[in-house]
């Protein structure tokens, strides 16, 4: 197997790398990675990439595969093949606001988010007839209602602790997210047997995990 895989820096790095180490013991442990952005195992060559850039790396065929959250796939809308949902990095994309806040059709609702495309797509669907404006922020989204930039937010929630600490509650879950395996469509032809072999190994691992084996 000779596959190039992009994995995200940040919250999915450790789980992503540990997941790949199930199939390639030649890869370093997360604690050994330090500042290296490219490294090789016995089967995989790994590129550490900012999460939002992963679909681009795969679409541009810099790597054959990528591991990335569903939130990023939905936001970036790149032309990649979405092959498999993985069993880690689980979280939810939610609308959150103050407990007493209610949706009104008589006023323009300002929504802060890091995910303008996801927000536009889902709110158009579920807030029919509501006039809303998206405020794109790059971080600390929970701050937006506190400083009155917007009355609600659309953001990714893992434990909900940050929401709670800022007196915000989940109003609606837009979708459940987790890590996904994506592929470049040309790699999925030229390296088909290797990619299918990898998918097969993942299924086998999941089956063993489901049966309670500690992996």
């Amino acid at each position: 197997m000779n596959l190039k895989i992009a994995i995200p820096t940040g919250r999915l790095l450790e789980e992503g790398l540990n997941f790949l180490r199930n199939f390639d013991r030649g890869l370093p442990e997360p604690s050994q990675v330090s500042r290296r952005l490219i490294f090789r195992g016995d089967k995989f060559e790994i590129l550490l990439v900012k999460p939002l850039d992963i679909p681009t790396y795969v679409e541009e065929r810099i790597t054959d595969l990528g591991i990335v959250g569903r939130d990023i796939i939905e936001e970036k809308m790149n032309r990649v093949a979405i092959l498999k949902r993985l069993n880690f990095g689980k979280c939810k994309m939610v609308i959150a606001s103050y407990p007493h806040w209610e949706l009104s059709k008589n006023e323009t609702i300002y929504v802060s988010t890091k995910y303008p495309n996801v927000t536009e797509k889902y709110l158009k669907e579920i807030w029919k007839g509501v006039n809303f404006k998206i405020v794109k922020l790059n971080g600390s989204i929970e701050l937006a209602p506190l400083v009155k930039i917007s009355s609600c937010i659309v953001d990714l929630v893992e434990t909900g602790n940050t929401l709670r600490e800022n007196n915000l509650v989940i109003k609606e879950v837009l979708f459940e997210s987790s890590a996904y395996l994506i592929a470049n469509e040309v790699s999925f032809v030229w390296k088909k047997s290797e990619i299918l072999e990898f998918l097969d190994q993942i299924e086998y691992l999941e089956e063993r995990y489901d049966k309670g084996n500690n992996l």
Partner: protein
Amino acid sequence: MIEKIIRNLLEEWGYREIKVPILGEPSLWKENNIVKIIDGKGRIFALRPEITSLVIQNISYNKIPVRVYYMGPIFSLEDGIVKENFQIGWELINSQDEWRDIEGLSIIFNILSKLNIEEFIVEINTTEIWENIWKNFEEEKIDKLRKYLIKRDYVSLIDEISREKRRVIEDIKSLIFYPKVEIRNLELKFEIEKLYDLKRKLEKIGIDKNKIMISPLLFRPFNYYNGLIFQVYLKELKTPLGGGGSYIQYNKKGEKIFGIGFAFIEEKLTSVLSDLNNDIKIFIGDKERYLEYYETLAEERRKGNKAVFIPYSENLNIAELKGEVKFLE
């Protein structure tokens, strides 16, 4: 150069060039990214996003095979910016038949071979595979599933199907994982066997079997496809070179047109064919002495060679020039 090679080959096979308008009725295309223009009388036209539909509109079929090819600019809107590309394609109009599909595919192999492209794969499938899957669903559901398939979102495709349709989920999984997983559904198996039969026949006419990949997962996004479909992948490209297949469409007289065609964007090929102009002789000299050199270049052209003049400058990067470089005295 690419156009010349393709033109020559297609004409050897009896294809003639067809020229169609750049403007068309917007209703001809369903794409969202169409460039529209309004004339002085308020009429709206579309700048063609592809040429095939216009070609079919202008074709009549009289029980004798019609062979046409086309080359020309196409337009699309990308992030609000008008993008122009050059499309090349060919159509063989005839009722559905095996010889027709074999000719349609073998032209692709012949053209790529003429262009000295060695590393490519032609993925083939039949629309019957997914038609068989759609039989299990209502129209509204099929629309949704088709969208996931076009997006290649295989996870959502399976998620969308209710757990009660376990057998269909198994069928779809076998299509995704094919050939690693065996296809058990007999109707699907039968269709795959027909593709193997076609592959064997292509082998008989000298086509390298390693360059043909049977891929039941392949799906082309237009409803008019009916029968064989295919997509071409070059090793150096990050997206497919182009695709096509067997179709049923209507011309502007409302007559049913059966055909097989293939189209691609020329810019994708030029990006991998940098050495096509290597047979050019490049003469480099002092620009002030152009008239003195004129006869040298003219003599080369009389001999049937291609000859170009490039003025010498300190910034000239000789390594970037494609062709045989000569310095003029």
